[in-house]
């Protein structure tokens, strides 16, 4: 390699690293976090298949990070600061990417000279794709993959050219060293896909000789085999993980094919535009109003910049097309075309091909963001074309050849490279990272190290919970800020629940903890079950931008509980602003224990169930979805949750609304000869609706159409048509309710029970009304009517759209606004009907001593009893099946006592009236209503502001959680009524109502041709005319809680054996069981995973317990039914760890074998 070029590349790498790390701080944030802060901790996290953090976790491919973190953590232990190591890592990546692209370009286009090769290298580093999606994206493994991709391809090509199998060993060895780059399956697919394309090209376009072709095929398979064996330790984990129950549960819970399809549709529409892809540009990054420093990203979307980008790209492509007779130019033109085709996803042209493959091959679902994942191929192929294209263009102008090449260098180095030279590439649009002097630098405060050491000393296997708890991302208020994934796993060596990241079982628990802590004094019950010893208050973040609870209020709450002996909590230690609180030792259950009492719950079980009955240490929540055979003949406590709740508006239910979206116009009945054509047209209509939501809406309209057809047929006395329409209705209804179920999983709003809850309720209650009318119509005695009604009730109740039972009335129990709770009881028993107390219930309800309610098809009258933290409505026997309990609206108390009627007037400037809500409960829904009259002027805005709303920069730019504008009516000049149901953000602590009005102003209407004149405040204000609104009867009343329990608390404890255990490693525990009387439930407080296996020691043998004995308990943990008497030993082991050991053995044996082979060949060559 040319020494000058080498020095040039070294200089570029060095200067860039100096620019990036000029602040002598780590770079971090985004999904990579601050990995270089504590590399030993990162090694611990990656070093084993089971990670102790959160509630324990298995992510197979993390073990691919072992070589990377082993080397770096070793260097950090030697005293090298993290930021120096990170700078070194960046230096290596930049240098490798430059050198390897140079070598690959030289190998493929040997006649073009240094100029072309260097241009290719520079373009590979500095282009608009790498700027945003590689370096700007700041995923360390993606950066490393991007850097080593040309290196591995170059070695592979070298092997083909030299016909030497030895190169396959080098590729495999390098892949093993840089295995971190392959820690995501998409990179493996891209790498081997690219290699395969090279091989096919050689096979069909270059090699004519049969021998060469055979060599090539052998070489490919040898490379693949060796690569697999060298990387077997992590590859086997990745494959196992893809087939594991945990992965499947994750995918089912958080992703669906239809969800992926929706993501693909929207991302393809935004990022799949040909105009952007040809220029390697991100579809939205460079346009629009943003907060980047100097709005630098918009520079690349200015007309001159776009002109330059097109000029450059077109000259390169045109020159390459001119040289198409060269095989490799053709190959890279083809590759570039293919890369654009797949990177645009399913957007036109011909996007249906991608869509078809995406739906047929599940592994392609990884590419639901095709531009981000597959765009690497565009950058790779274009870089190689750039060298050829630029030099060919320069050759066209022999007199200005040098000047042309210099211009190209300037274009790449200066125009494309300026975000790199200035460090802007590592800034983003959120403060403080949009400050070019700070960017994504991270400086972790000093108090974390002593806090972590103190915890390590004082904690065993227990966990701690960090409050306030937020989502996966956080905005730390550290000296240089931090925007990225929450970092407790790196900052502390002990496991903690510090975010609500989406993992099966975990996310449901994590998202409930804050509410349970705030609403329950005896939160220690939850701590006991979760094996939590400490609570951490961490106030060092921006709670409003992180949409988390105000840490100051959380501090008050923690201190309050620490001073209350009932909470079993006390202050323990503080480090800087961090404060630790400790639970009393006697309340925490051990990590492994034998259950004393079983609490049988259902699928909707939450840890709140622990507060519904008299909780005792060693109790276990046992869902009825698990095998219940072992519970036969045993006492247990039973808890059943309502699976749905329905708000019935009043006596008019089921109401009939003749709107086009419910019952469209019908001109023909189903016996008309045109009817098949009508059905065909409907099918074509559906075909052209691509979105599932659009399609199901249309299907619902068609259901209404069928009922209207039946109604028309009834009017005409056409029984055949009547039956036919209802038959189609019955056939189509299950399809709709199934799709509604699917949409509920992916597309429902957060305060909804099901997708489009309200409109579905309205439409289907109209359907019910019409079907009920058929019961008294001409064909009342037809079997089809009763069949349709039964089918309707079953399907809509199961889909949680409409209650199953008709509403009953009596003199004492008229139908007013009713709340219906629906239950699915699995164990027949006498159940107590219970609603847990909240901040608002029952305090804001005028409850009578006795209350009437409907249970299934009977009206009951029961005495209300208040005890502890619950309100009881008495006991009733329930058989197995669906049951419904409905209450008339209970009389509520308005939480607004004094400020109910007022005027809001704005004469000059805006006027606001704020009404703080006293005793606001963020976990309760509120009915807000008032009457208003805009006497003159412009109406007003009604908002609900929360304490964790984003702070506003100025008065005009206030972000309220809820806002609606109320305009004056041009016809009705009197009081009108407004009402809404308000659901708060649960992390809020306080709320206020805000009414704001502005003066009426017609400046813009007058100056409609020159509206800019109205930017002059003085001129604009001269057009102000007063606005006046009157508000009266303002009312904010809490709603009844949406959850109700059926409680069977007769269960007694059983005698449990004593259990001692010893943690061998994160993946192995030895257990001693003493005094077992047979068949007990062993609880293991790690996240449930099918990979955990339990063994009983019998002599020297370990006998595995059957899979059927392994159950989910406490909503997250592992449990095993153990049927053995007396004293014995057990072992719990995580199966993937055994696989890892086998994987290591295979990889190391292959590496040693290859090294020995190399040594033998070398020695033989030498002594010859």
């Amino acid at each position, binding site marked *: 390699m040319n020494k000058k070029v080498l020095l040039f590349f070294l200089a570029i790498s060095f200067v860039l690293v100096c620019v990036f790390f000029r602040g002598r701080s780590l770079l971090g944030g985004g999904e990579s976090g601050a990995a270089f802060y504590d590399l030993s901790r990162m090694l611990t996290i990656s070093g084993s298949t089971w990670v102790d953090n959160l509630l324990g976790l298995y992510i197979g491919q993390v073990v691919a990070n072992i070589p990377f973190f082993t080397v770096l953590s070793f260097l950090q232990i030697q005293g090298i600061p993290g930021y120096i190591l990170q700078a070194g890592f960046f230096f290596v990546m930049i240098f490798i990417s430059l050198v390897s692209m140079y070598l690959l370009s030289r190998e493929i286009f040997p006649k073009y000279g240094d100029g072309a090769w260097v241009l290719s290298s520079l373009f590979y580093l500095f282009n608009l794709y790498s700027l945003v999606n590689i370096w700007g994206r700041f995923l360390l493994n993606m950066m490393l993959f991007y850097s080593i991709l040309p290196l591995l391809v170059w070695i592979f090509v070298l092997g083909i050219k030299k016909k030497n199998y030895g190169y396959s060993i080098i590729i495999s060895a390098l892949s093993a060293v840089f295995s971190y780059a392959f820690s995501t399956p998409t990179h493996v697919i891209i790498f081997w896909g690219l290699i395969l394309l090279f091989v096919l090209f050689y096979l069909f376009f270059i090699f004519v000789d049969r021998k060469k072709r055979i060599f090539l095929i052998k070489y490919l398979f040898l490379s693949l085999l060796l690569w697999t064996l060298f990387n077997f330790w992590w590859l086997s984990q990745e494959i196992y993980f893809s087939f594991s129950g945990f992965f499947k549960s994750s995918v089912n819970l958080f992703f669906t094919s239809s969800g992926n399809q929706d993501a693909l549709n929207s991302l393809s529409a935004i990022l799949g535009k040909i105009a952007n892809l040809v220029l390697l540009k991100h579809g939205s990054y460079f346009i629009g109003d943003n907060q980047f420093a100097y709005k630098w990203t918009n520079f690349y979307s200015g007309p001159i910049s776009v002109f330059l980008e097109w000029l450059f790209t077109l000259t390169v492509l045109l020159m390459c097309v001119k040289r198409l007779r060269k095989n490799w130019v053709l190959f890279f033109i083809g590759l570039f075309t293919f890369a654009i085709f797949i990177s645009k996803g399913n957007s*036109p*042209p011909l996007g249906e091909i991608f869509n078809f493959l995406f739906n047929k091959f599940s592994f392609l679902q990884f590419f639901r963001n095709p531009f981000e994942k597959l765009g690497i191929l565009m950058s790779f192929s274009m870089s190689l074309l750039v060298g050829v294209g630029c030099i060919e263009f320069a050759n066209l102008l022999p007199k200005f050849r040098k000047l042309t090449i210099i211009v190209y260098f300037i274009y790449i180095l200066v125009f494309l490279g300026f975000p790199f030279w200035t460090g802007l590439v590592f800034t983003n649009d959120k403060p403080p990272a949009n400050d070019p002097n700070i960017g994504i630098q991270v400086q972790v405060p000093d108090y974390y190290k002593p806090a972590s050491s103190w915890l390590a000393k004082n904690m065993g296997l227990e966990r701690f919970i960090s409050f306030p708890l937020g989502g996966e991302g956080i905005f730390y208020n550290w000296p240089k800020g931090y925007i990225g994934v929450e970092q407790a796993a790196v900052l502390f060596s002990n496991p903690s629940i510090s975010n609500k990241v989406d993992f099966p079982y975990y996310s449901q628990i994590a998202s409930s903890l804050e509410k349970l802590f705030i609403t329950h004094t005896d939160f220690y019950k939850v701590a006991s079950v979760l094996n939590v010893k400490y609570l951490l208050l961490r106030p060092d973040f921006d709670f409003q931008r992180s949409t988390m609870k105000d840490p100051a209020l959380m501090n008050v709450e923690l201190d309050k509980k620490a001073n209350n002996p009932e909470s079993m909590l006390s202050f323990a230690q503080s480090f800087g602003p961090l404060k630790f609180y400790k639970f009393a030792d006697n309340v925490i259950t051990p990590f492994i224990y034998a259950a004393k009492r079983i609490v049988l719950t259902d699928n909707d079980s939450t840890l709140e169930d622990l507060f519904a009955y008299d909780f005792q240490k060693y109790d276990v929540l046992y869902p009825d979805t698990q095998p219940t055979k072992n519970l036969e003949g045993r006492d247990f406590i039973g808890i059943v949750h309502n699976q749905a709740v329905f708000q019935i508006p009043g006596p008019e239910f089921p109401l009939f609304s003749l709107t086009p979206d419910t019952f469209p116009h019908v001109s023909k009945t189903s016996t008309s000869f045109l009817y098949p054509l009508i059905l065909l047209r409907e099918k074509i209509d559906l075909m052209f609706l691509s979105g599932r939501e659009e399609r199901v809406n249309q299907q619902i309209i068609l259901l209404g159409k069928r009922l209207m057809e039946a109604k028309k047929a009834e009017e005409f006395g056409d029984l055949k048509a009547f039956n036919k329409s209802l038959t189609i209705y019955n056939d189509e209804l299950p399809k709709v309710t199934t799709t509604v179920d699917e949409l509920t999983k992916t597309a429902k709003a957060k305060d909804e029970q099901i997708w489009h809850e309200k409109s579905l309720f309205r439409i289907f209650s109209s359907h019910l009304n019409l079907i009920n009318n058929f019961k008294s119509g001409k064909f009342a005695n037809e079997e089809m009517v009763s069949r349709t009604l039964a089918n309707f009730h079953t399907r809509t109740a199961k889909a949680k759209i409409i209650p199953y039972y008709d509403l009953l009335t009596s003199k004492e129990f008229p139908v007013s606004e009713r709340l219906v709770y629906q239950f699915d009881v699995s164990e027949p028993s006498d159940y107590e009907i219970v609603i847990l107390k909240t901040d608002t219930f029952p305090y804001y309800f005028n409850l009578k001593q006795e209350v009437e309610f409907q249970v299934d098809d009977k009206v009951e009258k029961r005495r209300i009893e208040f005890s502890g933290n619950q309100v009881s409505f008495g006991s009733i026997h329930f058989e197995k099946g669906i049951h419904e309990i409905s209450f008339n609206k209970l009389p509520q108390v308005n939480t607004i006592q004094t400020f109910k009627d007022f005027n809001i007037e704005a004469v000059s400037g805006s006027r606001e009236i704020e009404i703080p809500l006293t005793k606001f409960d963020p976990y309760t829904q509120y009915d807000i209503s008032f009457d208003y009259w805009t006497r003159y002027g412009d109406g007003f805005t009604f908002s609900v502001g929360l304490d964790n709303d984003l702070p506003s920069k100025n008065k005009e730019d206030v972000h309220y959680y809820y806002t609606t504008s109320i305009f004056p009516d041009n016809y009705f000049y009197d009081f009108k009524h407004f009402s809404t149901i308000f659901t708060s953000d649960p992390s809020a602590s306080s709320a206020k109502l805000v009414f704001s009005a502005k003066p009426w102003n017609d400046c813009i209407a007058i100056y409609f041709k020159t509206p800019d004149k109205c930017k002059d405040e003085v001129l604009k204000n001269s057009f102000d005319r007063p606005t006046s609104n009157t508000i009266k009867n303002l009312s904010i009343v809490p709603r009844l809680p949406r959850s109700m329990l059926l409680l069977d608390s007769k269960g007694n404890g059983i005698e449990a054996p004593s259990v001692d255990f010893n943690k061998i490693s994160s993946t192995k525990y030895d257990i001693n069981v003493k005094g077992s009387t047979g068949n007990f439930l062993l609880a293991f407080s790690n996240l449930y995973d099918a990979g955990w296996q339990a063994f009983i020691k019998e002599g020297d043998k370990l006998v595995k317990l059957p899979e059927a004995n392994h159950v989910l308990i406490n909503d997250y943990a592992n449990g095993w039914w153990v049927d053995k008497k007396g004293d014995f030993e057990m072992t719990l082991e995580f199966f993937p760890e055994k696989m890892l050991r086998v994987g290591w053995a295979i990889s190391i044996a292959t590496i040693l074998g290859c090294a020995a082979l190399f040594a033998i060949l070398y020695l033989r060559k030498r002594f010859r």
Partner: protein
Amino acid sequence: MKERTKKIFGLTIVVFFGVCIYLGFVSLLTYISYFATFNRILNEFIYWIVFFVTFILAFGFKIQSKKIVLSIFPLILLGGIFDIFYLWQISEFILRIAFTLWIVFVIKLFSERIRKKEVN
């Protein structure tokens, strides 16, 4: 009439009727289905029509790939010019047509190269 003129005349008629049939089909679909808009159908189908017509032209009539390329670059240039002036919708439409032609061109080039290699 020269052979070449005949071919061009024939092609023009094929393309004309192709477009007529296509537009008739689109109008019919639009008429019978008031939910599917004209633009939507046009958006989905036009590229397929362009693809198949170009494919037939390129392979059926043995038109040289260089000629297809020559028709693509002015289109890309036009698309680029509209992009510079922020006329994104029209730019994208033109570039999508150009990319469809480009795909045919690349397929044709690869097929020519394979044939050449077989001949050699």
